[in-house]
């Protein structure tokens, strides 16, 4: 189980996280919601080891971890583009393998297989980055806004892969597209006022002012 607690993060005078706790076990998908600036992305970066918090207590299977990425236990999808621009799509697809890239996805991506990452649209690039991260052998996957920028059919494809991978891996994902997130998550938590609340349904999101009212 991955557990992070007592996280303290300040940028100058501004306190972003204070005493925050989050856990995720292998075989569980945790959806993390919260308004802009509440510290969701920072929390994922702190877990991965890219961002240094003033204080944190990160454990994986009761073992204290300092730089999670060094142990290859955790893979992390950041919000920004991160795959080198010279890599070819075909190479990325080969790296991903058939557990992530189904025949149907392969057929859809065939026309761009010879292109380099630099030549792709923002959505195509994002989709491939998501696939690459989902194919990593790490036990825990951190996905920061996987559904943003991409087309509806790609969201559905990613949801299927996340559900499949979530059977054996622990997945923490955050996104402002809360419906696709809620559809795949086993447990949903909302970061609000430096605290983490369990969310059962959309009505709870209204209660905590994450959405203004229920819309169907």
């Amino acid at each position: 189980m991955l557990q992070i607690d007592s996280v303290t993060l300040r940028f100058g005078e501004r306190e972003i996280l204070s005493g925050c706790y989050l856990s995720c076990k292998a075989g569980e998908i945790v959806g993390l919601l919260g308004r802009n600036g509440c510290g969701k992305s920072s929390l994922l970066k702190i877990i991965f080891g890219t961002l240094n918090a003033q204080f944190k207590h990160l454990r994986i299977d009761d073992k204290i971890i300092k730089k999670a990425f060094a142990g290859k236990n955790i893979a992390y999808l950041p919000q920004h583009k991160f795959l080198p621009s010279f890599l070819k799509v075909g190479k990325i697809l080969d790296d991903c393998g058939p557990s992530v890239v189904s025949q149907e996805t392969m057929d859809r991506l065939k026309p761009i297989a010879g292109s380099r990452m630099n030549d792709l649209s923002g959505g195509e690039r994002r989709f491939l980055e998501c696939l690459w991260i989902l194919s990593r052998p790490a036990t825990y996957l951190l996905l920061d806004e996987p559904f943003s920028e991409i087309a509806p059919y790609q969201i559905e494809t990613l949801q299927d892969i996340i559900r499949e991978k979530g059977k054996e891996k622990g997945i923490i994902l955050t996104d402002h597209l809360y419906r696709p997130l809620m559809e795949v998550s086993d447990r949903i938590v909302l970061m609000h006022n430096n605290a983490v609340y369990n969310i059962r349904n959309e009505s709870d999101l209204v209660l905590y002012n994450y959405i203004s009212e229920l819309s169907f």
Partner: protein
Amino acid sequence: MKIYLQFYRLYVVWFSVANIVGIWLFLSLPVIPVILILKIFFYIGIYFLTASSIRKYLCYFQNLGYSSLAIFLRVAAINLAAFTLLISAIKIIITYAAD
């Protein structure tokens, strides 16, 4: 090795500049230890110059289990070793040719 080549390819311009500066130093200061020390300082300069660009791809290398600084140091060391071998070979050839 693949990961080093990928990193090298991303920053090939900077490493090429480092090698050209190294050759220029070799021609003007033919004392290898001094050249090596100056080149290490030059690498430090490259790291600070390209730090923001390295940060852009940081996550890719971290997802493969490496920190960007660790990769940079290893690639710089490989480049330095290859460059040293090259200038030593040139020096030997020049010496024997003169004889």
